[in-house]
């Protein structure tokens, strides 16, 4: 049971990394990256191949993040004039192209057989303690990433990025380099996806194209939506909630009598869908609401029903 929990906790850490990247690109930058899983795969394959070629693991991980970031920036540059739905469609297609490339470029990726025997760091030394070590390592990385992102999003960079998300023309007139900000946001998101993929590859020691399917992208969007799509805390809490839900349904569905394995699997998917609908109905902002930078002047307590708004409307006669 303990080893099961450690495994699940580690997976939650990977999901948190991906979610943090999505909050950065989508929640803060307005860039809908439905090709998230493509960058996860890119990072996983980059790291696995470099590791297979004998490079040390920390180089593999940095390279995985860098390759994903570079491809992400390049993709974002090519589709720089697309937003919203159109960007979502292009990124969705892009992830599918990557998956097909992983399947068909057998000389490099061994096709649908996948790559096995990927080196797990220090596993020979740690033996049974490896799982705990990897759990801690993953969550330390989540902590570092969250800390740096939080710093960045509280800086003028974050403010400018949120302006680009809300209204590109206003941001441009305010003197902000809209394209640069979009590329940076998308690139950082892609880098975190790549890092998450690399961590996964060295954890399970096996990757194949059918690991990196769109369902994972949907899961991460679900996690971020449940947690609060603009908030870093929301990304982590949402990921934990998602994993809890995915695992809990496994047990609960098995309790329903008279179902075979396929039906149980379907019931889990169904439960997840119902949860998403409930969250969207009951708390559309997610667990953590959007937060704004405070002026520190302390004169007003804002909110949707702020009395100042109403009073001003009366004053104004409009």
């Amino acid at each position, binding site marked *: 049971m303990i080893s099961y929990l450690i495994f699940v906790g580690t997976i939650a850490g990977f999901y948190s990394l991906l979610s943090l990247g999505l909050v950065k690109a989508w929640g803060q930058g307005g860039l809908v990256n439905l090709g998230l899983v493509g960058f996860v795969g890119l990072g996983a394959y980059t790291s696995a191949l470099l590791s297979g070629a004998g490079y040390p693991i920390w180089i593999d991980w940095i390279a995985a993040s860098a390759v994903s970031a570079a491809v992400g920036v390049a993709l974002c540059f090519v589709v720089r004039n697309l937003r919203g739905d159109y960007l979502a469609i292009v990124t969705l297609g892009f992830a599918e192209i990557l998956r097909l490339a992983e399947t068909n470029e057998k000389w490099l990726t061994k096709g649908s057989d996948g790559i096995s025997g990927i080196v797990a760091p220090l596993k020979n030394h740690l033996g049974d303690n490896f799982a705990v070590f990897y759990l801690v390592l993953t969550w330390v990385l989540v902590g570092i990433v969250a800390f740096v992102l939080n710093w960045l999003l509280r*800086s*003028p*960079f974050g403010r*400018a990025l949120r302006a680009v998300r809300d209204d590109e023309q206003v941001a441009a007139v305010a003197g902000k380099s809209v394209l640069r900000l979009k590329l940076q946001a998308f690139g950082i998101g892609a880098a975190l996806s790549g890092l998450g993929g690399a961590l996964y590859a060295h954890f399970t020691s096996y990757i194949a194209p059918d690991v990196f399917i769109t369902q994972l992208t949907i899961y991460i969007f679900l996690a971020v939506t449940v947690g609060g799509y603009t908030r870093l805390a929301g990304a982590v809490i949402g990921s934990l909630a998602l994993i809890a839900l995915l695992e809990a349904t496994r047990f609960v569905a098995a309790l329903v009598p008279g179902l075979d394995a396929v039906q149980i699997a379907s019931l889990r998917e169904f439960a997840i869908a119902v949860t998403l609908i409930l969250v969207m109905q009951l708390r559309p902002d997610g667990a953590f609401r959007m937060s704004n930078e405070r*002026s520190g002047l302390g*004169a*007003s307590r804002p909110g949707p029903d702020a009395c100042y708004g109403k009073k001003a409307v009366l004053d104004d006669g409009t």
Partner: protein
Amino acid sequence: MTTSASLLEVDDIRARFGGVRALDGASFSVEAGTITGLIGPNGAGKTTIFNCISGLVDGFSGAVRFDGADISRARPEVVSRSGLVRSFQLARGCPLMTVFEHLMLYGPRQAGEGVFRALTSPGAVRRQEEELRERSYAVARRLRLDHVLDNLVTDLSGGQKKLLEIGRVLLADPKMVLLDEPMAGVNPTLVGEIAEQLAAIGESGVTILLIEHEMELIERLCDDVIVMADGKFLTRGSFDEVTADRRVQESYLGVQLQ
């Protein structure tokens, strides 16, 4: 017209959208340190010319020079950074951001906007933020927006949105501002207040080019009035001169005299 003191020069701008000729050879210049009115009937191309100057539209021919540099078809952020900042007619803004964030956003040359600088020089960024914060407070107090600083812009009244349009333009520390109907849809008391603010801004040395339909305001504020009609420059002069011009009366009032 003296060209030596011209801060902004617009030379023969032509722009069409589909089959519509929005601008058909518009030329004029604006002297440094003046408040200039830009008037003309609806569809004369006033807002379009603002869009061309500020870089939001780049499909036009002709030249725009600001402060000695050619800024024709420059990107909007480049135009704004050169010290020429515009406001929007339909007060627009970032719906999920507060008044305070809008003011801070417009601060020029912010070191913390680069990923690298934001992470590596926290001291410099903090100092700049403090300074910007003080300036935001000052502008907010001046425009009586200090009590709504932490409200989302979507919670503001129409008049407050207009004031914020002016406020954030000021935060950019501009040499010149392009104001697109700053008084449209604002109640009469507030109009007087905005007019006083604009006069004060003009006195502080900022050049203002102002689109406005409210003739009393143009008369009260503007040193110089430019009249456009049908996408072209029609005439310019003092308020009394242009309003006495029969061509202006004809185009503005749509009356065929004689």
